[in-house]
């Protein structure tokens, strides 16, 4: 259900991609007899992608430079599926060698032995100190922020999750993602738990806090596209939504605004599927894609914030200000403590599912 856990999966873009792929395949079939095959067999690496804008940006700014440099071809497989990663480690059949995981998933994957140990040859000199985590390499980040309709709140919308919960000060309908790991910390913040005391989560307190806002939640969003449409069409007055989706709406001159304040940052990590026969190539690939200059271009194109601070040297300030990891934005937001949250998540998710259905 919730495979769409990261932003950027525009239907248009994926359709365009599919068309492009058909054209490429068709033309290569037609041209096949005239192509001289190189004597050396080319190596291929299979990368799991989110499709859409994500894949377009990755293909142009991450995959192409890597192939040019090493001669290793990249083939993509989508969508991203944690279940598939688990199945691969179990069966030894590899559909992809490399994938990206969010914070909650990487702890789970590492605990369950679904990913390879970080390769000893990985050069960390150009990385941030905290960039290697749980056998993954942090790449980019997105943020769940508070956005609102300006026609509903002309004097400014909710500036914190406590405001978002305050139905007297900001009357109207609400919407949040149907995803326990992201929603529960917000409920605690709204109940005035300080940022640094969120984990381990007090689940009873979080659900009690959610009870207060539940009558005003018209719908729980599950897909990035859906959250965007809900805000664009004014179905809801205020929403917890990904920053990239909101910025897109603002760039389309929609009547919406948002705050970085108390935004909830999610990290994406590159990992290698456990037991992959192409693990060596995979680590070379990861080394290449977190290089500051390439990461910078990818983040600009796909609306993310780089997790290698050196990448900002390659980003114009106007662009950087729209990124969750830009220092001024970063310091008013918070990060999830995924290592502490992970042991709670299975129970929290089950409880959340039941609570929503009640």
């Amino acid at each position, binding site marked *: *259900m*919730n*495979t769409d856990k990261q932003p950027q999966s525009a*239907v248009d873009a994926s359709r365009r991609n599919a068309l492009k792929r058909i054209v490429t395949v068709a033309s290569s079939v037609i041209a096949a007899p005239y192509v001289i095959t190189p004597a050396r067999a080319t190596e291929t690496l299979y990368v799991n992608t989110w499709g859409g804008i994500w894949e377009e940006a990755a293909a142009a700014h991450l995959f192409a430079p890597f192939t040019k440099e090493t001669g290793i071809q990249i083939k993509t497989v989508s969508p991203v*599926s*944690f*279940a598939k990663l*688990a199945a691969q480690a179990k069966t030894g059949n590899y559909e992809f060698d490399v994938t990206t995981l969010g914070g909650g998933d990487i702890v*789970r994957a590492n605990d*369950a032995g679904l990913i390879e140990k970080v390769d000893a040859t990985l050069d960390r000199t150009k990385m941030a100190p905290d960039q290697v985590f749980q056998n993954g390499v942090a790449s980019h980040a997105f943020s769940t922020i508070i956005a609102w309709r300006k026609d509903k709140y002309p004097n400014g919308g909710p500036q914190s999750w406590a405001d978002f919960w305050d139905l007297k000060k900001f009357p109207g309908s609400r919407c949040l993602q*149907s995803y326990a790991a992201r929603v529960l910390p917000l409920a605690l913040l709204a109940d005035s738990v300080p940022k640094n005391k969120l984990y381990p989560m007090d689940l009873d307190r979080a659900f009690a806090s959610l009870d207060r806002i539940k009558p005003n*939640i*018209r*719908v*729980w969003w*599950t*897909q990035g*596209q*859906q959250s965007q*449409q809900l805000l664009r*069409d*004014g*179905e809801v007055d205020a929403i917890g939504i990904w920053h990239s989706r909101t910025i897109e709406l603002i760039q389309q001159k929609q009547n919406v605004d948002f705050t970085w304040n108390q935004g909830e940052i999610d990290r994406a990590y590159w990992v290698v599927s456990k037991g992959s026969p192409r693990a060596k190539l995979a680590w070379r690939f990861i080394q290449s894609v977190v290089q500051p200059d390439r990461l910078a271009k990818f983040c600009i194109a796909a609306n993310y914030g780089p997790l290698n601070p050196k990448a900002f040297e390659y980003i114009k300030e106007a662009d950087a200000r729209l990124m969750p990891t830009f220092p001024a934005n970063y310091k008013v937001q918070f990060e999830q403590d995924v290592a502490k949250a992970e042991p709670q998540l*299975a129970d929290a*998710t*089950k409880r959340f*599912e*039941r609570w*929503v*259905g*009640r």
Partner: protein
Amino acid sequence: MGAISASTPAQAPIAASRWARRWLPWMLLAPVLVYLAVFYLVPLAIVIVSSVTDPSPSLSHYRDFFTDSFYLRVLSRTFATSLIVTICCLVLAYPLAYAMARREDTLVVAMLTVVALTFWTSFLVRTYAWMVILGNRGPITALFRMVGWDPPPEILFTRFSSTLAMVHILLPFMVMALYSVMKKIDPALLRAAQNLGASPGRTFRHVYFPLSAPGVVNGCTMVFILCLGFYVTPVLLGSPREQMLAGLIGSQIEELLDFGEASAMAVVLLLVTLGLVALYNRFVGIDTLWG
């Protein structure tokens, strides 16, 4: 017997042809049987096995399912929703298919095209289209405002909106199932009934409807079973309280990695569906209707 006839040379070709007659149908069926075994029976067996072995051999997943009022409520809601959608589809599709089957002109082609057209649009796109139509800035809400009903009633994110969209998505299946059967009903039978003094209502009740019944059963079974597997549409359009079992199965796998519980749920859904079909067969008889 084959061995005896093969002993005389003159009869050998007959034996060969008998052998062929016996095995040829199976050889022709072989590709589809292999296909079904590989892509249907084997995965199904894996699901059944993992429902009692993942992570350790026990029936605990089934016990968990049947002792949890939440799961049971979702299961019953799934069936209730599917039943409502099936009935709505039948009521809407029957007159349409009837009209299509009784005509011979180009209008039929036009109607068939319109029905088939919805097949060509991705159901996700159709679901989003309903969000726009029923939404705050959609034509329905505008109509309510025009007649002075302001603020207009909330249509989106209710049970009504999700049912409406599912009926829209599944309607073509029902129309096609009914149309293919109705097209084969001999109009002479209806004329004969009327000649013998039956009123139009009586002709329909005693002649037309029984003859169209196989289509009704086919269509209802298909729509009902397809509907059981829906979850994206209810999640996007329905009320947050309205979950379908397929959605829960999905989240068991994607969010909780609990393949065992998910398999058990899938098996329960399958068994209950088969149970319903068996019940129907017992009291109504599927074979007689399909025949």
